[in-house]
């Protein structure tokens, strides 16, 4: 996952929405773990469009 840190609001919406519990927000830094199955929900949910899936345009 590519996080646009200049856009990210550190709001945790992606964390609580991830069905795999694969995102962790360490105060302001997002960490994605290997449980991510690339479902894309977090990308769609992010209110400011700060997330992009690697390998996708």
């Amino acid at each position: 996952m590519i996080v646009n840190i200049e856009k990210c609001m550190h709001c945790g919406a992606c964390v609580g929405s991830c069905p795999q519990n694969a995102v962790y927000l360490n105060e302001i830094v997002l960490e994605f773990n290997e449980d991510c199955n690339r479902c894309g929900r977090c990308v769609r949910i992010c209110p400011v469009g700060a997330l992009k899936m690697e390998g996708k345009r």
Partner: protein
Amino acid sequence: MRTDYDIIVVGAGPAGSMTAKHAARKGARVLMIEKRQEIGAPLRCAEGVNRRGLEKAGVPVDRRWVSTDISGAKLVSPGGHVFRIDESQAGNEVGMVLERHLFDKAMAADAARAGAEIWLKTAAVDVIKEGERVVGVKARREGEPLRLTAGCVVAADGFESQVARWAGIDTSLKAGDITTCFQYRMTNLRTEPDYCEFIIGSVAPGGYIWIFPKGDDTANVGIGVLASKLEKPGEVKRYLDDWIRKDERLSCGQPLEALAGGVSVSPPVERSVMDGLILVGDSARIIDPITGGGIANGLLAGMHAGNVLGDCAQAKDFSEEAMMPYDKLWRDAMEDRLWRNWMAKEKFLTLSDSTLDAVIETLSTANVDKMSVHNILIAIKERHPELVREFEELI
């Protein structure tokens, strides 16, 4: 440094602080950990709360954390019909807009005065289990890894709700039960300084735009959109920016603060306790699915959790069975309403802009003397029975 407590509360929001306060008051050794460096900041809230919610949780109003007293609410339909509910109709349902930076700190201070310890910049990163029982958390305190053990861990980590999931309680949500939000605190506005406003319809699919006054010409102007209605990344902020540009009362304003966040609009969790773990607040998915408000429910659940945990600490028994009274207390207080409002939300989603116009128009001319979901449904039934047919059982 002590690393063993009766109770470790993860998250110093309103729910966590209330739990910590009431448990500590009964003599339990309580540690509350918060991953941020400041309690109550950055803000993730529109800050509206009703007086009755505070009363029920035994929180006396302190003017220091009240930003603005509210005289009523305005519900605005897509076509511009306005349903005004003033305070006399709303009873204690309308209330005030808080200063949550200060409110959350005041709640945490009460916990501290009751004897709870608070550590900032301390994040839980996993739970520690022995068999099926939770016995503590793995944490990082200012970056240092740490094992903290406790009779009971309190999952008060808000919308993120990771602690419960690490422990094995599934709090994940379907897209139709998540609202994602974006908000500005704006100033130099021409909005009403004492009315909360809700704008519904396709301007905010599956959610609404809100304007909550913060004194004079300043207000929290925000939007929530249902995740299942989102198509492109970044849409939530765009929906709000589009609206602000079009609404003359807002387009003259300037932002002072921006924030985002997720809100569950789901039924509550099926399971709120297990051996050594208890869920309070947003992590238990107890936000009202219609209003998106979770402060009052979080405070009340926290109060009940703290009281039960205090007893458990005295009995040295944090089994699921010993903590079940908490499950019953919060369910008795709010579960029916949460389910009913979740069903109302599901229905709301099916309404087109033209139907919403008809409904709001009806309400603006009908005589609804006491504002409640129930009374609103009755008023609609009189003129548009077809709209409430599937809702008959709620009336």
